[in-house]
């Protein structure tokens, strides 16, 4: 099936099997391996991408269902090659990752949260990441990373 996916600001014409998941199309067809494949049945959240700016599980969508939508993957949040976004940098600073399995999903979820709600409470952060499993950090440093990113974005001129 011929499709055009709009990913990270560019259109990509691809040819995939009808039932290819968005996750597999991103990783295997477009080579965007930053979107992690974990459980592949909707439980862990590591495959999270932004669809029109909001987090969704890319393993629970067919690539065909993403046609006409704006998809953002972890590769799409960096300001320039070799740089980190404020959110990514905050994850580094607070040790918000260990093995890195959950990190792309957590970072994208944090980006979407902070765009919709620049000053989230701790409870709002926990609710936002409630669909993303982390088996390393115990979540504490991830919540800290998002709080730190919120503080930094509040003080920056270019959110």
């Amino acid at each position: 099936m011929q499709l055009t996916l709009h990913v990270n600001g560019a259109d990509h014409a691809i040819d995939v099997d009808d039932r290819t998941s968005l996750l597999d199309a991103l990783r295997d067809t477009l080579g965007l391996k930053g979107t992690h494949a974990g459980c592949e049945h909707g439980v862990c959240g590591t495959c999270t991408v932004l669809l029109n700016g909001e987090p969704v599980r890319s393993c629970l969508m067919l690539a065909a269902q993403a046609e006409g939508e704006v998809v953002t993957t972890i590769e799409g949040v960096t300001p320039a090659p070799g740089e980190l976004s404020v959110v990514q940098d905050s994850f580094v600073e607070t040790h918000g990752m260990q093995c890195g399995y959950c990190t792309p999903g957590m970072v994208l979820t944090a980006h979407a949260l902070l765009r919709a709600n620049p000053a989230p409470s701790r409870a709002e952060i926990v609710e936002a990441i409630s669909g993303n499993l982390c088996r390393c950090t115990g979540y504490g440093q991830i919540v800290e990373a998002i709080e730190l990113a919120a503080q930094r974005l509040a003080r920056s001129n270019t959110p």
Partner: protein
Amino acid sequence: MAQALAWMAADPDARLLAGGQTLMPMLAMRLVRPSKLIDIARIPGLDRLEIAADRVELGATLRQVAVERSAALAEAVPLLAKAIRFVGHPPTRRRGTVGGSLANADPAAELALVAVTLGAELLLHDGSAVAAVDFFLAPMTTALPEGAMLTGLRIARQSAPRRGTGFREVAMRAGDYALASAACEVTLDAAGRCASLRLGIGGATPVPTLLPLAALLGTSLTEAKPAIAAALAPLEMMSDGNAGAAYRRRAAQALAEQVLADALAEAMRCN
């Protein structure tokens, strides 16, 4: 819609795909292998949200997140607003649909419990309607005829001024399948006595079930415990690796008492 119905009629192994938050995992695990997947998410108007003076109608492909974000809907049907936050997690509510959840008929589904509790009707493509209590037959089994499409949910608005609602559940983790859940809507008369009462149990029973509590009408609702226990007594409780039937019965009793207390407290604050 006509095209989708024609494809279904031509091929009994075809399946409708709405939000995909249940069907996609089933495909990934090869639990189902439908010959055709018919994506209904882009059928125009099927995601409608109509809020009229006497009722609300939610289209089958209305995303759960749209239910969560509509202040007008929360005002019209407060029980729905309370329940929707228990449905999965934010990213699954972004894709998951009202109709997908109803047609899937998971015993733990919060939207099904709200539909039964409020006496809602499920709307079919041919213009007919099925009462929610008659729609859910068994776990994952509905009265939807072969080849039919669920197109929406209609809920009559409760107009009594002194109204309160409550929704609670217990699950292994927030967002997981409910082991037991309870939903309640109560209205009071001018003297503070119960004018109407609807209390439903989900998660614990194979289908969401309305408790027969007519004996409490006209009372102050402060002595509801024995009536709830009597209503739960004949019901079959499910048992699985997460919780046995005895646990679910206790949880259902406790949750029913709590949602009734929540609803009553809310109704008493209205004047």
